[in-house]
């Protein structure tokens, strides 16, 4: 089966330690997590976790079933391949001398629609949002100028239009 990266949206009850439970499960079962983003969902008392994991379809099916065994996990949706809006935010501190500053700024704003949020005589901080591969691509382009620091949030995703990963969809326990 082909390995590819999967995006899972997991809705969980907001109990202390729930992220720990989920991560412990991934660790214990040897599932490889590339990115995690956690925050509140549209329902009070529910958090939304977005995971990007690597593996074949069978592994993702196992991840999903194992996640459902956790008491706080209410819904797991594999949104991979759906018509998705995907976003990650990154702050990038890059070296910028008087000579290079204009180049960095042009590259970042023209192509990647980054914003500048701080500047010192030697550095710039840029803020960029987009699908993770856009951020990867920007980092590649910026790297020659000297990246000093990168902070990324991890990917969040949402299905476009009427397709959704909300709680109203009842879990079908039949494998």
């Amino acid at each position, binding site marked *: 089966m082909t390995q590819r990266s999967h995006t899972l949206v997991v809705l969980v009850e907001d109990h202390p330690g729930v992220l720990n439970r989920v991560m412990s499960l991934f660790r214990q079962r040897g599932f490889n997590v590339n990115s995690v983003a956690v925050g509140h969902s549209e329902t009070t008392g529910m958090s939304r976790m977005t995971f990007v994991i690597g593996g074949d379809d069978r592994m993702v099916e196992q991840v999903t079933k194992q996640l459902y065994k956790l*008491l706080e996990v209410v819904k797991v949706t594999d949104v991979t391949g759906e018509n998705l809006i995907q976003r990650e935010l990154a702050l990038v501190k890059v070296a910028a001398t008087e000579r290079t500053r204009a180049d960095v700024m042009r590259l970042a704003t023209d192509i990647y629609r980054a914003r500048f949020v701080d500047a010192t005589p030697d550095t710039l901080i840029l803020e960029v949002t987009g699908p993770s591969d856009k951020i990867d691509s920007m980092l590649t382009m910026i790297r020659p100028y000297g990246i000093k620091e990168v902070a990324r949030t991890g990917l969040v995703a949402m299905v476009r239009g009427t397709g959704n990963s909300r709680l109203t969809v009842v879990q079908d326990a039949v494998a």
Partner: protein
Amino acid sequence: MVATTPEESGAAPAASQPRSVAKAAPSIGARVLCEALVREGVDTVFGYPGGAVIPLYDVLPEFPSIHHVLVRHEQGAGHAADGYARVTGKVGVCLATSGPGATNLVTPIATAMLDSIPMVAITGQVGQHFIGSDAFQEIDITGITLPITKHNFLVRHAADIGPTIQKAFHLAKSGRPGPVLVDIPKDVLLAASELGAAESLDLVGYKPTYTPHRRQIRLAAQEIRNAQKPLILAGHGILLSGAMDELKTLAEKAQIPVGLTLLGIGGLDQNHPLCLGMVGMHGFAHANRAIYETDVLIGVGMRFDDRVTGRVSDFAPNARVVHIDIDPAEIGKNIETTVPVVGDARQALALLNAELEELRHDEWIESIAEWRRTPPYRPHANDAVLQPQFVMERLCEATDGNAIVVTDVGQHQMWAAQYFQCNKPNNWVTSGGLGTMGFGVPAALGAALARPDDEVWAVVGDGGVQMTLFEFATLVQEQANVNVVIINNGYLGMVRQWQQLFHDRNYSETFISQPDFQMLATAYGMAARTVTSRDDVDVAIEWAREIVGPTLLNFVVEQEMNVYPMIPSGGSYGELIEKGE
């Protein structure tokens, strides 16, 4: 049992002066906990006191319907609760103090997790203002037990004790059963509180599927109809869901032979003509051959563990697989499934029986019977040296296969599985998934206290028994009706067997010395005998059966006997070793 007074709680009266229960005393968390346990129908708790749980022990004498069994080590409490659960189907309860008391429960909790045993473990925790400070006897037991519990709780308010206990019991016994841990800080036990009314539980993220999908049942029935050589593999789920009758009906109606997993023993009477007995690494050759040849394999309440499958690519190579399990995560985990059926084994089999007409597979059944006619390996049948297989056969004969048999882990466990033809449900107690040495004696304690009118035999090795034999003291204190049988081969036998077969007889660290078991048991107050010859076996067994209270029989057996047949670890049926040189 009379509780002795712990020094720390100076106010407590001496055991001889029964404490008068002051009616006006405001109720505290500890009392709420006991009331919640009583409400769950708990009659026995296996435990060990300590600082963090003193408030609980302080109120325990007010609850005479709860029999507290003082073990000698918390590991014993956990395994005893496990044994209690396995022979009753009820939730086993164990109790320990914070820190070292709690960590001593780790092995039994893991044992219960891997065998899907309903268990509630209650641990004390340091006061909440100490949590996170590495206080005396503080340990993060909910963190430690995250991967080995079905769920665990840290109770932060006394008002949550009642609802949490209710949830814990519900979780432990529903769906796929398992251990649940409830950690309660000392200040919560001491806080003023009352037990509220039981609530109707609505756990948003926990809705086990009991009734299988009708379409899946129809598909399963169709697979069975199309089969020439169908085979059922019956696991622990049969016993956990009480599907014994439904299994028998399916086997008879559709004429399908049944293989049992190690934990499925008791799911179908082994004297039943369609029962093939145990499958897997040390399963019967005819049963494993049937798996090799079957064209439709119906796994029910079992999880295709590697001790059953061997090398997965060669397991049931010709079979389409119907897998019935209450845990959807088991389906497709190890073996690719043709028809998945998620649901309770009893309900699934009942629906399947209603769906199916009578079928016959005479040729298939006859060919299995033919393989079975090859007599099983009986080493040195006339040898003067005592053979472990012989002891198990005689024990089976003496008890008609009706006693509760609790084993430890090793060769004796496999001989017990093979030669003690246990044929009653919930009479076979063994650590299958984790393979926990030291399990046998305390689990037998739990089994005997749960079913005091039944005969209980603990079959243990001379290695494993040394891991928890301090529980002899508890057997004596409780006058538990346990007959301990040591299959004494002077080795860590199962490891020695692997060393012999796969590591050039390099018996590194598997010769094990031992105390004089007979004297030791006598010192603890047990009636004990040592048996070295075939002629004395029956007499000794009868002698132990006559005695009320715990006994010990030390059978000194041939040292280098092996368990056969054997499929080497990760091997396939084609590599089955039928017998020794």
